[in-house]
């Protein structure tokens, strides 16, 4: 088992007039080398759950264990180090820096790791080759197509070879062909031994054969389907 959440609650703006309970005593276990989809309407709490699993922020209460490490009470610096080594993120809008070249965007997670520029280029080249974007290597990311942008985002999430890949609404801005292509790439990653968690309510994702499990979230609570 890779991830285990026990009684996890997340409350935003606690004890204020605009207090929101985003997650309410969530218990969840996710096995390694599986592909899980967190499904729910907008505001249901799925992105919050993804952020807690990704060590972006801590739960208000409860315990999070990833690969045997208790992460729920780690200081911010150690959460950052954990993110740096173990997690690859794919964002809803990809969050690619448009003024950087494709290669420079891909190597961003490697810069603080102290890897030599030659090795960073080599790793980036392998991923660009795998995702067929080598011809765009020195293009500013702002000048490439949506499909290429998606592959750049995936390459960036994998450049440091993380065991866990988190994707937040990755197909929200893609047409059905690109969404299919994305899921095909995710299936390949799963075959390569990665654990993948995707938040989505897109049928292309939820009905994909590579998905092992769908977790429905409503009003911050998990509903077993």
């Amino acid at each position, binding site marked *: 088992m890779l991830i285990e959440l026990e009684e996890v609650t997340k409350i935003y703006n606690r004890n204020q007039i605009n207090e929101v309970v985003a997650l309410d005593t969530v218990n969840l276990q996710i096995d390694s080398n599986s592909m899980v989809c967190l499904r729910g309407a907008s505001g249901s709490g799925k*992105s919050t759950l*993804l*952020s807690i699993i990704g060590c*972006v*922020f801590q739960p208000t209460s409860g315990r999070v264990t990833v690969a045997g490490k208790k992460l729920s009470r780690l200081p911010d*610096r150690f959460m*950052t*180090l954990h*993110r*740096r*080594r173990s*997690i690859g*993120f794919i*964002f*809803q*809008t990809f*969050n690619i*820096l448009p*003024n*950087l070249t494709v290669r*420079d965007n891909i190597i*961003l*997670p*490697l*810069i*603080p*790791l*102290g*890897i*030599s*520029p030659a090795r*960073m280029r080599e790793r980036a080249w392998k991923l660009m080759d795998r995702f067929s974007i080598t011809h765009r290597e020195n293009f500013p990311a702002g000048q490439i197509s949506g499909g290429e942008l998606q592959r750049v985002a995936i390459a*960036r999430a994998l450049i*440091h070879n993380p065991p866990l890949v988190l994707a*937040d*609404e990755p197909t929200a801005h893609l047409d059905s062909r690109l969404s299919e292509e994305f899921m095909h790439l995710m299936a390949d990653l799963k075959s390569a031994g990665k654990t993948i968690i995707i938040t989505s309510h897109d049928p292309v994702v939820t009905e994909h054969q590579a998905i092992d499990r769908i977790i429905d979230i409503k009003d911050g609570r998990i509903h077993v389907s």
Partner: protein
Amino acid sequence: MIGGLTKHTNILDYSLASLWRRRMKNISVLVVFSGVIFLVASFQMLTQALTETAALALRSAPEITIQKISAGRQVAVPVEYTEKLSVIFGIKDIVPRIWGYYFDEVQGANYTVMGIDARRMPLGDKLHLTLQEGTMPDSGTGGQAVVGRSVKKILEQKGGRLLSLFRPDLSLASFEVTGVFKPEIDILTDDLVVMSIDDARDLFSIPVNMATDLCVYVANQSEVTTIAKKIAALLPGTRVLTRSQISKTYQVVFGWRSGFASVCLLAALSAFVILAWDKASGLSPEEKREISILKILGWETSDILAVRFWEGFLVSGLAFVNGCTLAYIHVAFFEATLFRPVLVGWSVIHPSLHLVPSFIVSNFILIFCFSVLPYLAATVIPAWRSASVPADSALSGM
């Protein structure tokens, strides 16, 4: 260790790329910042160079100068004072000197006219070493003068080597120009006309038994202050100036003017830093988004601060080097054209100075502290505040 070094070179590389991405903005900042530092450094270097040039020129001045003061103003001093002072042990020689100002109405320029008795001066036989060309006036032969370079230029414009000056009774006294002073001592000689003491006395109609001041030469340099005190005690109503006092006066005058101008320029520098602060603290949404993405991708706050530090340091450091280099060129090769009137004076004749700025480390540290450090603070501190934003903002689609 090697990984840490590689990390920092990677971050430096990222900073350089980041500067290049926003090159128009950064080049604009660099140009303005270099300009401000150039102005401040020019003043520092010019003041230093002027003070040193003045000190160099004053080395050949008499150790003590005696002037008579009446009603708070300088008046002619009786030559007979030399006999009164002969009782003071340690005085090598006392030489009367006549000097005054002559206003050339045609050119609208003030000349400083000085009459000396070179034969009685301890270094009188070496005065020709101060000349760029020609010889010193022959004391035995009247009607000769050596002039500073600006006076010579004025004469050349008139097309002659004869300097004609009016006496108080408006009769004309003419002098053949026999030499020109060296450019290295322009600060003292540029507007100077030196002639024999008799000619100067005749030109200004000063009686034979009077002089403008008395130059006292002392055998032992360490006794100058003591002898000056004895002279002051012996001759009440006189002003006794030592060479070191005159040197200090130069320093005070240049220092005051430089300080005044520096305050104005530091105000400009402060305004620039405040502007930089305002700009940096109001990070654009694009910059905030970049910081947020980097944090999600595993960059620590210190990594982001390092990027901002290098960006700020590269811009301000380059501006510092540019500004100081330009200031050196401005002072050394262009005679500090922009600021010379402020520091040297407002006379119609501006000395053409040949200044060699010296590298005083404390001056550069001062400029560094007033330019690079505030700029770094103005860029890093707001970035630190922005880097403290929650990393999750990148997850919400932004």
